[in-house]
């Protein structure tokens, strides 16, 4: 020890004293908060703010929070609406670790952090706080909105959501327009599991889905690679999952929380993935449906989605179900309307097979009002469910529409499907076609005819005109419009027909005038035209696709008088019960406009019928 001390050079003896030079310097210590208000850094992770005009109450912040500091609390006064849950995050600052993971994952970007880091209160409750856009001090009136400076906010680097969808592979336009093969290829297991991992499980979609499907639950089943569990979730609310997994209007996706900043989760394709990958033979084991027989029978008219769904749920409750269907095959629009390239027969067959396996009888070629009277059905069953859909086409009724080469979309689509499955003759294929209409049915017929033209003549010559002046205004889905364009369909948005030009008894084309407005100030359909501006589109066939209407002629007159109608639709209560207590209705004739509404109606009516019959006991 002595030795090492003596190693210290003599000249260093006073070295430490040099520190005295600091005596005269300004101290570096600052007195916060008494003398100095120290501004935190730009990225500071201080107390939260939450912009309620953006927050959707999805609760993702609470899920990611590693300290369980966030609780979702229902806020009185907020109401459940599409895309929003009536709850907001409450943060317990006794637990919060100020990690900002909640900010980085927030689906809307409403949650942010401020540079506020001082909060003094003798009330412990003050540390449990529901942030608004005003921040923690607002409560005590210390800060007006906007004054608490922003700290940590999410940027593209720190974002913890996955905003991009797993791409769905499709058949290329040049290839698909030559046949009616299904366009969408479906997800592989790997793709589906990846897409399922994007979901945050908030369930906002469930509220918006007309059938209130257990969407987050079945997506989680995919994430966990448990398709049997997934199938059980699907069948709780939707026995037409295979169909819906392909052609549902997917309103759920329009409210998906991820859609606030990115591409919504591909809910529809995920549903399809489950059904495509569970073999039909396994269904009965997985779903394990063994109801006790009730000894009561229900008659259903129409085998579209509403009729089939009602049949399924009634059968699972133990009712004896018979469906009367006018067409040779069951399925309604799914069988005879929607084109094969979107919904192949096999998909529908799989859904119907399970329903039949439950003992549901489907009597086809049995048109009520012709092959069997309504009264007979009413007599045979304890309750009757009407699901006859909108089977009649509407016409523009402009001069010339009575020509045989001016067709309606529905019968044409039916003819095409029948032809493709070998049930009927080849439909007439025009060299030049004009389609009138801007909705999805117009897309279906345009694209189907484009395919037939390609097969027949090697080129597409379809011209589709609509009143709506832009693609955005057109009621058709943007995907449909884009795909039609890719397949060679030409669009004429903003034109209304004046007349079908007929020469020598042959259709020559259609004259149109410019549409300058479709809806009036009250959002009512009330088109206005500039008569001066006109175009002529050549055609040897015209197809009208401007809407469908119901046909109630099978219902006896005195019964029709007892029913209540509103704009062509039958009025019912929430259980599909009409003004006649044993008569229920659903699908397009009650709500419309799509399959999943039909499924929801079928489910509601099944519950209603069960309630009605149980109450009679």
């Amino acid at each position: 020890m002595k030795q090492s001390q003596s190693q210290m050079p003599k000249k260093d003896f006073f070295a430490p004293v040099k520190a005295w030079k600091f005596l005269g310097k300004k101290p570096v210590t600052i007195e916060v908060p008494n003398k100095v208000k120290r501004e935190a850094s730009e990225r500071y992770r201080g107390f939260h703010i939450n912009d309620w005009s953006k927050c959707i109450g999805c609760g993702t912040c609470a899920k990611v929070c590693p300290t369980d500091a966030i609780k979702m609390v229902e806020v009185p006064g907020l109401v459940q609406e599409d895309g929003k849950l009536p709850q907001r995050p409450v943060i317990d600052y006794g637990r919060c670790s100020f990690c900002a993971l909640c900010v980085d994952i927030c689906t809307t970007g409403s949650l942010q952090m401020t540079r506020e880091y001082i909060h003094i209160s003798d009330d412990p409750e003050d540390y449990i706080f529901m942030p608004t856009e005003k921040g923690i001090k607002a409560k005590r009136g210390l800060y007006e909105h906007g004054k608490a400076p922003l700290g940590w906010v999410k940027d593209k680097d720190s974002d913890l959501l996955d905003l991009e969808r797993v791409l769905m592979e499709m058949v290329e336009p040049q290839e698909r327009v030559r046949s009616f093969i299904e366009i969408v290829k479906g997800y592989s297991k790997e793709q589906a599991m990846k897409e399922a991992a994007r979901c945050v499980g908030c369930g906002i979609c469930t509220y918006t889905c007309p059938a209130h499907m257990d969407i987050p639950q079945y997506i989680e089943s995919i994430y966990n690679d448990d398709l049997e569990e997934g199938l059980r979730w699907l069948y709780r609310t939707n026995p037409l999952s295979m169909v819906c997994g392909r052609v549902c209007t997917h309103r759920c996706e329009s409210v998906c929380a991820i859609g606030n900043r990115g591409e919504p989760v591909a809910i529809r394709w995920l549903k399809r993935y489950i059904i495509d990958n569970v073999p039909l033979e396994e269904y009965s084991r997985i779903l394990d449906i063994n109801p006790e027989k009730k000894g009561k029978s229900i008659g259903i008219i129409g085998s579209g989605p509403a009729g089939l769904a009602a049949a399924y749920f009634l059968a699972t409750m133990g009712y004896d179900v018979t469906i009367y269907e006018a067409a040779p095959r069951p399925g309604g629009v799914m069988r005879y309307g929607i084109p094969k390239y979107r919904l192949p027969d096999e998909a529908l067959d799989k859904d119907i097979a399970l329903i039949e396996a439950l003992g549901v009888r489907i009597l086809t070629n049995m048109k009520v009002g012709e092959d069997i009277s309504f009264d007979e059905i009413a007599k045979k069953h304890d309750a009757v469910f009407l699901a006859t859909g909108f089977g009649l086409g509407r016409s523009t009724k402009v001069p010339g529409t009575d020509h045989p080469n001016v067709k309606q979309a529905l019968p044409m689509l039916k003819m095409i499907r029948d032809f493709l499955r070998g049930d009927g003759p080849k439909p007439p294929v025009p060299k030049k076609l004009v389609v009138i209409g801007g909705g999805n049915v117009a897309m279906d017929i345009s694209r189907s005819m484009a395919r037939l033209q390609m097969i027949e003549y090697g080129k597409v010559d379809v011209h589709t005109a609509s009143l709506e002046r832009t693609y955005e205004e057109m009621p058709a889905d943007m995907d449909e419009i884009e795909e039609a364009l890719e397949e060679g369909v030409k669009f004429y948005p903003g034109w209304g027909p004046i007349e079908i030009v007929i020469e020598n008894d042959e259709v020559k084309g259609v004259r149109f005038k410019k549409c300058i407005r479709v809806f009036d100030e009250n959002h009512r359909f009330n088109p206005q035209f500039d008569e001066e501006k006109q175009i002529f589109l050549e055609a040897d066939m015209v197809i009208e696709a401007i809407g469908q209407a119901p046909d109630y002629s099978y219902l006896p007159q005195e019964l029709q008088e007892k029913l209540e109608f509103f704009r062509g639709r039958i009025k019912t209560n929430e259980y599909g019960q009409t003004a006649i207590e044993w008569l229920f209705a659903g699908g397009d004739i009650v709500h419309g406009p799509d399959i999943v509404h039909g499924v929801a109606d079928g489910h509601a009516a099944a519950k209603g019928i069960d309630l009605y019959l149980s109450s009679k006991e």
Partner: protein
Amino acid sequence: MGEVKLFFGPNHPGMHGNFSVHMYVEGDIVKRARPLPGFLHRGFEKLMERRFWYSNIALIPRICVPEPDINEACYAMAIEKIAKLDVPERAQWIRMIILELARMANHLMAVGGIGGPLGLYTASHWGMADRDRILDIFEAISGARIYHMYIVPGGVRKNITPKIEEMIWKFLEYIESRFDDYENLIFKNRIVHSRLKGRIILTREHALEMGVTGVGLRATGVPYDVRKVDPYLFYDKVDFIVPTATDGDAFSRVYLKFQELKQSVRIIRQALEKMPQSDKVNVPISKGSALRHRVPKGMAYAHVESARGEYGFFVVSDGKNKPYRVAVRGASYPQGLYGIEKYLPGTRIEDVPVWLATMDVCAPEIDR
């Protein structure tokens, strides 16, 4: 004179964290010593199994308060090994800057902090004040001064702006201008020499036997530094030396830290110069939201040279969205547990805090 039992910590200003040493002394001489961890009640490793891969970044920095970033780095690097992630180059350089700044913050606290047990409080104040300048930088980069939660599996959470780079350059210049002051005040100080030189020696055999790394081992002449023996990030692309000493005493250990400060300055300068400009500073662990990131089945060990020696995370994944097991190799485990029991006896009472300080015993690392 009979044996007396004295408690050093957990409530003692000279104690490093929630830890205590039970000393059985005769006169001023420690006869037996027993380390007592267990005041933290955290169970970090177990907690990690219950949290998403990503959410764990809020927890792990807490395993070492003075140098939290090594936890983030090891955790991230182990996951990246299992998931075979390609971390953007800029993020790797940024991580090096963070880790060296953290080393400096830690060493400044340790070098200045030696003033605590020795009564040289000016040194402690300087160390703390200068460390605060680093915390300012951390605050600018990560939004927090102590628990940065900034290095994440896949990269870092946010990019470093030119303004922040400027801040770092300025700090390096400043701290260099201070080295002479530190040298004069501490290392040319008779009292320091008499308290530390030739005292509390840990020999090479003992260090190797216990598994001591870091300055404890390097002070015995073994140039073991993970940055050199198993370079991670871009440590193989920068010039720096690993200072060593041969005395194995307390003085060597503190002086090595002081010299390492200068090496860190070199490393950070090179990193700032070599770092490519890029918008991309991370890649996701896997497709999906952070609630559902999955790490493929597998296991990996990732280690770094912390301010206290070799520090590592062993991570096991069973393919789910949470870790199956995480085990931490705390660098101060050997000297903090075995070392106290085996090598404190024979030293004097006033040597005990010096052991803890120069050996960098960090309680949560042991009690994890």
